[in-house]
């Protein structure tokens, strides 16, 4: 039996001010899958993400992570199983130094100090940031912040990784480093992104949200090659899913 799955059933959510964010969303992500969740601004992507780590609770429909429904009682288990890398690393790195920040999660799990220290080192080394351990977060570059935020989440050894716009605000090299880092993870991944090229690179499967509904769910190459669909949802075909402008050779040919 796999604990690394997400099952969303008919989820609906309306914000207190009356804005309908999600309507009848159903989605299943299985063990080891890497799924891109794409959609225009305000399509409900982040709201959906917040339901998966229990920051928001389902008021309509249900969310099951592993074998547990996301409820107030299961929250500690859900939060251990699901690691969230938030959109703005400034929100996520709240401790005085990188080391303390990565240690925050393990210590909350009541891990003994020695073990926590080893865990922090392992996770920082994994993202290539061990040399930054004594720095305060405001002394890091955008790419370093993002990598440290990922390490802080890895330190809780989650089964499932949720990533909200992991490439926003990064220069090409920083973006490339984050992509290669994420490619190396065997976790079940759900990546919210506008960066459709990143989706093509990392996720075999893509889901499009539009105005709070799932409007497409399938192989990334097929979905992100469908110009009419993307246009309707306020998106644009990424270069990597387009045929070559010179010779006309495209992703569609590659798959044959």
């Amino acid at each position, binding site marked *: 039996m796999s604990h690394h799955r997400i099952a969303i059933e008919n989820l609906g959510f309306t914000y207190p001010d009356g804005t309908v964010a999600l309507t009848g969303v159903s989605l299943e992500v299985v063990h080891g899958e890497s799924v891109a969740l794409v959609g225009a601004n305000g399509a409900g992507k982040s709201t959906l993400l*917040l339901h998966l*780590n229990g*920051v928001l609770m389902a008021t309509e429909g249900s969310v099951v992570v592993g074998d547990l429904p996301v409820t107030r009682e299961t929250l*500690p288990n859900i*939060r*251990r199983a*699901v*690691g*969230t890398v*938030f959109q*703005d690393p*400034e*929100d*996520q790195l*709240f*401790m*005085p*130094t990188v*080391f*303390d920040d990565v*240690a*925050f*999660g393990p*210590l*909350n*799990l009541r891990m003994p*100090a020695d073990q*926590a*220290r080893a865990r922090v080192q392992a996770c920082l080394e994994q993202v290539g940031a061990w040399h930054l351990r*004594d720095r*305060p*977060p*405001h*002394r890091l570059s955008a790419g370093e912040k993002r990598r440290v935020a990922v390490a*802080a*989440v890895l330190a*809780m050894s989650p089964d499932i990784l949720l990533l909200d716009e992991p490439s926003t605000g990064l220069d090409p090299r920083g973006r490339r480093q984050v992509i290669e880092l994420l490619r190396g993870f065997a976790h079940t991944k759900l990546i919210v992104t506008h960066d459709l090229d990143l989706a093509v690179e990392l996720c075999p499967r893509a889901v499009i949200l539009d105005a709070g509904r799932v409007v497409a769910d399938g192989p990334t190459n097929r979905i992100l090659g469908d110009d009419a669909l993307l246009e309707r949802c306020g998106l644009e075909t990424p270069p990597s899913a387009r045929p070559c402008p010179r010779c006309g050779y495209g992703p569609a040919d590659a798959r044959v």
Partner: protein
Amino acid sequence: MSGGHSAFDLGTLDRLGRGTSPIHRLDPRAKLLVTFVFILAVVSLDKHAVGDLLPFFLFPMIILARGEVPFRFVARKIAVVAPFAVLVGIFNPLVDREVMLRIGEVGISGGWLSFVSIVLRVVLTIGALLLLVATTGVPALGRAAERLGAPRLFVTQILGLYRYLFLLVDESQRTLRAYRLRAPDGKTPSWRLFARILGQLLLRAVARARRVYDAMLARGFDGEVRLIGDLRFAGRDWAFLVLWIAIFAVLRFLHPARLLGDLLLRGTP
């Protein structure tokens, strides 16, 4: 990127705090305690004390030199608060006119003595505090305070405040720049507008606090912030602590300046 040019120059203080001088390498608890005792000794002297205060300059001067802190930096920061000290003491010479000290023909009143004493004390205490932060850094000080028994909630608040102060400074600078770029005559904002800008900043800070809290919850926050305590009190920390406290005790209770003065006066009848 971070607010290196803010009014209080947090960026420089923060950079200094991560130095590697012999003073930086001392245990933060030793430095915190010594500075605390220093301030107690300085403020508890008699209100007309001037001569007794002067030997206390030994401590900040040694920390300044051994801690590799630029003198100009400390001097500038003290200059910022000096007007307040002057303001506090400025009326003393008018109120207290009794002559307490004669140098040749000139009589110096108690008011003038207490005025100079207040200014000296401000320079000493503010200087010592600045040097403490510049040779230790706020994160290490927070850790030290916690280990010495300060309430954990309070320490967490201070550290959080320090962490997000930099962002707040950045954000206010961006907002002000956005204002300036669209203010044709480049004049400073009116009070009404300034209040509105502050309101904007507050709303943004509240929204960020919400997101930070969500991020803390997502990593299992249960109301208590835990730190791995990596502090080790070594021999040189003990030496630093005991030696300085002994020196302060001598300066505070035995008044060596006065003794020296008496000795010299007796030598020349």
